[in-house]
Structures are given as structure tokens and as C-alpha cells.
């Protein structure tokens, strides 16, 4: 049964990718990207990677197409016919060579799904067997993410922070530093989205609530700071789409978002510095409490919070920066 679902999903993925190669027009491409993200998320579920699936659904099928759509709204949806001739031949050649190399690489791989493969027998078993005792939370992915490889996660937060800085830097105009201008204009469109606004008003609080649930439930089930941040930001973006950029900017001013983004990273980083100051290695949570397991709990909680804050505020700030490009006015 699992194999069947597997094959179906993979076939759909291939079909989507092929369609992406064939299709012309950016809107269609973006929709296919979204479909691709959703399909791969489903695939991840069948592979047992629920956390990844959650994230991919939020990012691959959500945020990423959203950003693409914003871009297309600015630049237009047209796409020229693809280059033929030499470019095509060269690209095909390159792809075929690379692909062949990859195929050759797969030939000596351990069989798919084998429990005896080195990947399954060397480091991973330690996490599965020891994390219960050492960290004390059921979600092993969170244990590894937030404690064993917390430094990677710090790097990840920094990546998203960097992206925020980069987007704001790139899209900043000469007249303002922040990601958006606060203006008094109301919703520019003549016809208010009454129905959408009503439904939005009902749903958005629940979306935000759900974000908090995901944030703090990450230790027990799929979820965590990153997913929570994305969901929170989606709520904010939805609000912005329905009620206009100025409205949402009044609620969450762009400068505040920038400060929050930095603060999130700092919360994470300074947690590590705390250990450092107490003579333990960076990000060693054991100094946070007397009981090592409790200490791990506290540590994970705090850094997940940092992750959540940064992700939510960076994605919101990126949204502001892009949405600002849509606003008419001197830019």
C-alpha cells in the first residue's frame, strides 16, 4: 500500500515537473510550483518525515508561491518563448551529464528503505535511543534540531535573518530605510472585499492561535518555531491582503518587525552565550537549570521562541518589502 502511494506521488511529482518545463506563463508556473510543494509534502508524510512535511507545506506550497505571486504582480505574468538551438542543446547536454553522474552515484547506494544502511545504523540510532533520556521530549526531530544540532539551527535562523536583511537592503529605496511606508491611504480598491474581510476577521485569530499552538507543541508533535513563525506570518499577510498594507503596517510597524527579527536571533544566540559565560560550551543548556532534562526543556523552549519570532517577523518584513513595490507612488 505504502509503495503504491509512493509511486503515485512520485509520478505526480514527475508530471508536475514536466508540466513546469513545458508550460509558458508565470502564473501557471507558480501554481505548478505550489502543487509541487504540496505533493512533496505529501511524499514526506509517507516517508515519516512529518516535521519536514509540515514545513514544506507551509513554505513550498505557501510562502514561496506567495512571494512569486507578489513578484509577478509587480513585473507582469508574461514569459517569452524559451530559447531554442544552441542554448537548448547545451543545457540538455549538461543536464544529461549531471544526471548520468547522479545515476552512477546511486548504483552503489544501499537499497531504499533498508534499515541496515549506514545512514540508519551509525549516528541516528543514538538519537532515537538516547534522546528520551537525555532530552526528555518525544519529538526526536525537535531534540536533534534544538539540542544536538542546535548550532545548525542557529545558522538556519541566521540564514532567514540574512534573507530579511538582504531583501530589505535590495528593495529599500533612496527615501526610506524600512520595508514599507506608513501612509494614511485606506484600501485603494474601490470595491471592498466585504465577504473576504468578514471571513478573514473570523479566521485570522484562529490562524494566529494555531501558530502559538504549533510553537509550543513542537516538543510533542510535528511543529516548532519555524513552522509557527511561518503560520503566524501567513496570518499577518492574509490580514494585509484583505485590509491593505497601511492597516497592517499600523498594527505591526515595519521597524518593529526589523527589531523583532534581530531580537529573535539574539534570544537564541544569547541563550548560547549564557552557557558560555557559565563555563560550558556554547549552547550547552545544562547550565540553565539544576536538572539536565529540565535544562534541556528550558533551552529548547527559549530557542524555539527565538526561531519563531525571527521567522515570523522576517517573513512579515519581506512581505512588506514586496507589497511596498506594488503600491503606487514615488519609489
Amino acid at each position, binding site marked *: 500500500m505504502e509503495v503504491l502511494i509512493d509511486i503515485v506521488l512520485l509520478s505526480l511529482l514527475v508530471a508536475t515537473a514536466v508540466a513546469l518545463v513545458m508550460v509558458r506563463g508565470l502564473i501557471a508556473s507558480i501554481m505548478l510550483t505550489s502543487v509541487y510543494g504540496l505533493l512533496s509534502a505529501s511524499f514526506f508524510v509517507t516517508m515519516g518525515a512529518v516535521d519536514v512535511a509540515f514545513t514544506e507545506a507551509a513554505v513550498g506550497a505557501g510562502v514561496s508561491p506567495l512571494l512569486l505571486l507578489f513578484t509577478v504582480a509587480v513585473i507582469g505574468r508574461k514569459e517569452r518563448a524559451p530559447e531554442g538551438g544552441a542554448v537548448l542543446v547545451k543545457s540538455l547536454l549538461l543536464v544529461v551529464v549531471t544526471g548520468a553522474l547522479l545515476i552512477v552515484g546511486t548504483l552503489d547506494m544501499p537499497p531504499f528503505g533498508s534499515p541496515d544502511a549506514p545512514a540508519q545504523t551509525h549516528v541516528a540510532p543514538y538519537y532515537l535511543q538516547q534522546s528520551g533520556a537525555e532530552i526528555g521530549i518525544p519529538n526526536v526531530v525537535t531534540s536533534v534540531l534544538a539540542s544536538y544540532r542546535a548550532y545548525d539551527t542557529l545558522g538556519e535562523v541566521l540564514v532567514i535573518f540574512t534573507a530579511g536583511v538582504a531583501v530589505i537592503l535590495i528593495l529599500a529605496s533612496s527615501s526610506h530605510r524600512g520595508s514599507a511606508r506608513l501612509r494614511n491611504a485606506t484600501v485603494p480598491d474601490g*470595491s471592498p*472585499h466585504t*465577504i*473576504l474581510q468578514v*471571513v478573514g476577521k*473570523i*479566521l485570522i485569530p484562529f490562524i494566529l492561535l494555531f501558530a502559538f499552538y504549533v510553537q509550543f507543541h513542537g516538543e510533542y508533535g510535528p511543529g516548532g518555531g519555524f513552522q509557527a513563525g511561518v503560520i503566524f506570518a501567513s496570518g499577518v499577510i492574509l490580514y494585509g491582503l484583505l485590509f491593505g498594507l497601511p492597516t497592517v503596517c499600523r498594527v505591526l510597524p515595519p521597524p518593529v518587525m526589523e527589531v523583532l527579527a534581530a531580537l529573535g536571533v539574539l534570544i537564541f544566540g544569547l541563550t548560547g552565550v549564557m552557557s558560555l559565560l557559565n563555563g560550558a560550551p556554547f549552547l550547552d543548556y545544562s547550565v540553565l537549570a539544576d536538572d539536565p532534562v529540565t535544562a534541556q526543556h528550558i533551552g529548547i523552549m527559549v530557542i524555539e521562541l527565538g526561531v519563531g519570532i525571527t521567522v515570523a517577523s522576517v517573513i512579515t518584513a519581506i512581505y512588506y518589502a514586496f507589497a511596498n513595490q506594488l503600491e503606487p507612488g514615488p519609489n
Partner: protein
Amino acid sequence: MSTILAWTSDACLLVGSFLLLTGALGFLRFNDFYARIHACGVTETLATALIILGLLLQSDSATPQFKLALILLFVLFSSPTASHALAKAAWNAGLRPRDNSGKRGIPLPPRER
């Protein structure tokens, strides 16, 4: 009792899937944008509801049931709203419904001109 529940659940899932299929068929076969939205929107709302209902009946602990119920609620809100948003966007962009012959059928209401 459990047998009846199982049967009901299976029936819900089956009908739900069938409705989804018809929705997809309609989406592919109809030649008018609004008709396509209609096909998807209507069937999807019911189909999703049925499928979640079927899953609800299969589950035996409280947490998943609660979550499924929330999802159902969410879908009931979002799915029609999404259809509405699509149709409204198309209308605002100037797209008008067509009749079965493929010609523009419904005239513009005077207010819109």
C-alpha cells in the same frame, strides 16, 4: 456498532472521493470559467466534508477527532470564500460568463458599467 460505524465511514469516504472526481471532471470539461469554479467549489465543499466525516468515524481517540473537526470547520470557511474570491477577481478583471455555445451570454448589469 463498530461495524455500522465502519460501513458508514467507508460510505462517506467513497462518496466523498466520487464527488471529488466529478469536481475534477467538471473542472476539465466545462468551457466556462465560472462553471469550472462552480464545479470545483460546490463538490469540494461537500466532498471534503464527507471525507473528514469518514475519517472522524474511523478515529477512536479524542485528539485527532477534535483536530479533524477543526479542519472541517476551517474548510467550510475557506473553501467557499476562496471560490468567491476567484469569481470576484475574474469578474473585476472583466471576464464574463458564457453560455453553452461558448458565446458571451449574460449581459452586464447596468451598475457595473
